């Protein structure tokens, strides 16, 4: 209530076209640019051919792009109203995967809904951010700082994480935890809490080791010493480093990467596509792409900072943070700075799930930007 008076009552009900006009075209442009870099790399990975990957990826991008625009133009109050339902739908989908996986005897991460396969864990990344933003939107400064504010978010975060880790998908689980923690941090929980949590995590590592699956342990071990098993599990990271390093400053030239064109690189079209890029375009090309990501994510953070409602702020910056983790983990992984956890480089790696997550997130960020002046009631969406 106080909020409204402080910033002055200003109803902003715009038409769809007005909202489109208000779009942050910088973000749209950067995303198209990044996607195009992806098409180019998939063209290269296919040995200089649109088929089979680049063409399909482009088709997906058109769909995802349209979805992003639709999401962007939907009033942010609807998104706030949809925050908790989205979380519940996400949980139901994860449970559905669990059940199907149990029947199909084996780890499964996706649901086949006919036209496409969806990964509920991907959608969950967004839903958790929405739900947390929604929750803290209703908590004032003091409430946000109290430790009681940890209870609901803990449930919002840990329930999906538990389901995702069971799949098993430790990487996505950790990303949800980290994204959630970022929102808790932004929401104003005391800083000492995060320091303590960090120490706790460090202490828990040996315990967690006991619960890890063999292939997860292998990944960590080969990360720590990839040369110990150069033809086995360490092969991927060793070959990736060779590709990155041999690209040099300016790269070997488009379609000329020996490590990629001669198939020495593993998983080129998905997890290791950044390596292909760095090999063919060198340090310069890789830094340009990293810069594109950084700028588009900085946009997300800035939109958050420039937003009037706490929901919008937390949503935009929380999503930007989650997406950043995506990029960070993938790039650090291919450089041998992190264990190979199977996180793709969104927008560039071949595959619809990560792209969909990214574009939905940017749809929401754009929606926040369009509706940055909308004030939202602390309890409820204000839709009346």
């Amino acid at each position, binding site marked *: 209530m106080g909020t409204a008076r402080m910033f002055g009552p200003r109803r902003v009900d715009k038409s769809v076209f007005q909202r489109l006009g208000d779009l942050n075209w910088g973000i749209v442009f950067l995303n198209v640019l990044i996607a195009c870099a992806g098409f180019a790399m998939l063209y290269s990975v296919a040995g200089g051919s649109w088929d089979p990957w680049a063409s399909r990826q482009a088709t997906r991008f058109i769909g995802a792009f349209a979805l992003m625009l639709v999401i962007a133009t939907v009033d942010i109050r609807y998104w706030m109203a949809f925050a908790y339902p989205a979380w519940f739908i996400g949980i139901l989908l994860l449970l559905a995967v669990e059940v199907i996986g149990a029947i199909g005897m084996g780890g499964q991460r996706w649901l086949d809904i006919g036209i496409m396969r969806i990964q509920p864990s991907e959608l969950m990344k967004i839903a958790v951010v929405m739900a947390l933003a929604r929750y803290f939107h209703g908590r004032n*400064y003091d409430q946000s700082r109290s430790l009681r504010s940890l209870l609901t978010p803990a449930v919002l975060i840990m329930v999906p994480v538990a389901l995702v880790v069971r799949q098993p998908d430790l990487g996505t689980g950790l990303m949800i935890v980290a994204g959630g923690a970022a929102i808790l941090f932004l929401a104003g929980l005391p800083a000492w809490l995060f320091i303590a949590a960090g120490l706790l995590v460090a202490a828990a590592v040996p315990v967690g080791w006991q619960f890890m699956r063999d292939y997860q342990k292998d990944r960590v071990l080969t990360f720590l010493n990839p040369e110990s098993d150069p033809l086995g599990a360490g092969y991927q990271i060793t070959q990736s480093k060779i590709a990155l390093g*041999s690209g040099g400053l300016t790269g070997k030239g488009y379609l000329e990467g020996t490590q990629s064109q*001669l198939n*020495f690189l593993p998983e080129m079209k998905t997890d290791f596509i950044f390596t292909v890029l760095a090999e063919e375009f060198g*340090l310069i090309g890789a830094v340009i792409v990293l810069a594109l990501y950084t700028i588009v994510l900085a946009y997300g953070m800035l939109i958050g900072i420039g937003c009037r409602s706490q929901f919008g702020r937390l949503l935009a910056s929380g999503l930007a943070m989650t997406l950043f983790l995506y990029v960070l983990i993938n790039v650090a992984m291919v450089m041998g700075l992190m264990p190979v956890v199977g996180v793709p480089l969104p927008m560039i790696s071949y595959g619809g799930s990560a792209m969909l997550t990214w574009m939905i997130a940017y749809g929401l960020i754009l929606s926040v930007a369009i509706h940055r002046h909308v004030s939202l009631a602390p309890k409820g969406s204000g839709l009346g």
Partner: protein
Amino acid sequence: MAREGLRYQTFSRRAFLLAGAQGLAVTALGGRLYYLSVVEGEKYKLRAERNRVAIRLIAPERGEILDRYGRKLATNRQDFRVFLIPEQADEVANTLVKIGHIVKLDDRRLSRIERQIKRQRKFVPVTVAQGLDWATFAKVNVAVPELPGVVPDAGRSRFYPSGNEIAHLVGYTASPNEDDVALNPLYQLPGFKVGRQGLERRYEDRLRGSAGTRRVEVNSVGREIRELPPRQEADPGSNLQLTIDLALQKYTIDLLGEKAAGVVAMDIRTGEILTMASAPTYDPNEFTRGISSENWNALLKDPRKPLINKCVTGQYPPGSTIKPVIALAALEHGVVKPETEYYCNGRHRLGNHTFNCWKPGGHGRLDLLGAIAHSCDVYFYKVAEDLDVDNIADMVSRFGLGDLFDLGIDGEKAGMVPDRGWKRAVLNQPWHLGETLNISIGQGAMLSTPLQLAVLTSRLASGRRIFPSLVSLPGTDESKMKAFDAMDVNPLHLRVARRGMEMVTERGGTAHDYRRPKSAAKLAGKSGTAQVRRISKEERLEGVIHNDDLPWNMRDHALFIAYGPVEDPEIAVSVLVQHGGGGSSVAAPIARAVIDKALEIRHAPPAEETAPDAAGTTAEEA
């Protein structure tokens, strides 16, 4: 209200903090990338090159084996083959089925391929098919992109144009085994063969040549993408020229026909072996291709033992062919003089044992020359009573019995020269005089090979310590001859032995050469008939069973040694016909024919064939 401002401030501060952290993290990534690509870039460039570039060996062309006139005994010809590298194949069984659609692979072939795949390491290529025609080979080439691990190869494979004639000498090549591969990486090359038998094996290092190298760009599974210059061509193997005369060898093999026999013909002056024929024989090309188990079993089961080189592996009692050397030993030790006469009544008693002459009624009175000419056993029994066995052993050893000549062919045996020391060492028994008597007529424990008998003959004929050779060495006939020492025996005694041998082929001799045309060279020789069974007293009384009435493997071995022309000996020959019957009736005509042929060739030698040109042979054989 202020509280809302505080909430916003906290958010903004922390949002900037996180954005800063993002910036730092990205900078760290960039730094890492800089470190990898610029600071350590050279190291990784090198490693990428190592990944990309593979050094592949180029197979050298195997050296040819030639006869003394440059005719090809072993050569190489174009061969369209298909290999399978199990390691690179998606699924071996499946791949074989697919190849089977193009190339006919019968069940036996398939099971052999599968056995080979199991036995070898997975990167060693297995020959799936060979000797394909061009059309089939082209079809395989078209199908290759869908068949990983399948390697069509227009290589060259070993070929023996006159396989049957030279099998026992040249041997054959075969697929390398793991031991070979450990020795030389060349053997890993698809279709590369290693000398497995005979001269092919002995002179492997010389014939093989050394590998060339080429650099190829490969992908991660080792498939070649393209070749990168420069290329270092392979060094072909050296040719090996033999002393064998292929024409004479062929002639001899044809002459032997279905017999189980061995014939060695030598140039007396140089020791060069002109012919070493062992019958029956086999086709080494089958081994190079990979012999079928059917044919292999047939070779193994044949009682005439085609796989055995009877000239060096077969050890037989020399029979009466040893008598000229016994006579020489007796002369050297003063036991007899040429004119010493003994009376032969057909038997000789020693203690309570009777030693029979081959001629039931006896020869009557004869001197040493007559004893050789008529091969009188009793005369030699009497000589042997005064001649110590160790003296006999010493003399026959000097003529090459018991020696290995190490010609590079397989299975050479030393034969057996028994003496007192041997009997004591092996049987721990004292020597009996009766055994000396047996040995004096070439029976008993004494064994020799046809090669040794040929050497013995050339040493008798030349008076020099001739050593046989199979591989051609530089030098003239004269220089080669001078390289041999004179035999350490009285030349006069040698002449007596030779005169005895001359008389063998004259009127009254055991091998009277009555059909000799005037133009043909006069020969000296000595027949021998080696018993393979004991003739009992009863049988002797009733009359010895004639050879023709005995089963094949109970019949006597027929032997004959000869040299000619007697005036100036050039060719020495030894003939053995296993279970052939009498030496003079069966073996002597063969010796005669071989020497005639050898002399005929010698006096009108064929034009030396030009140095072999590998490319030229391809054209005419492809």
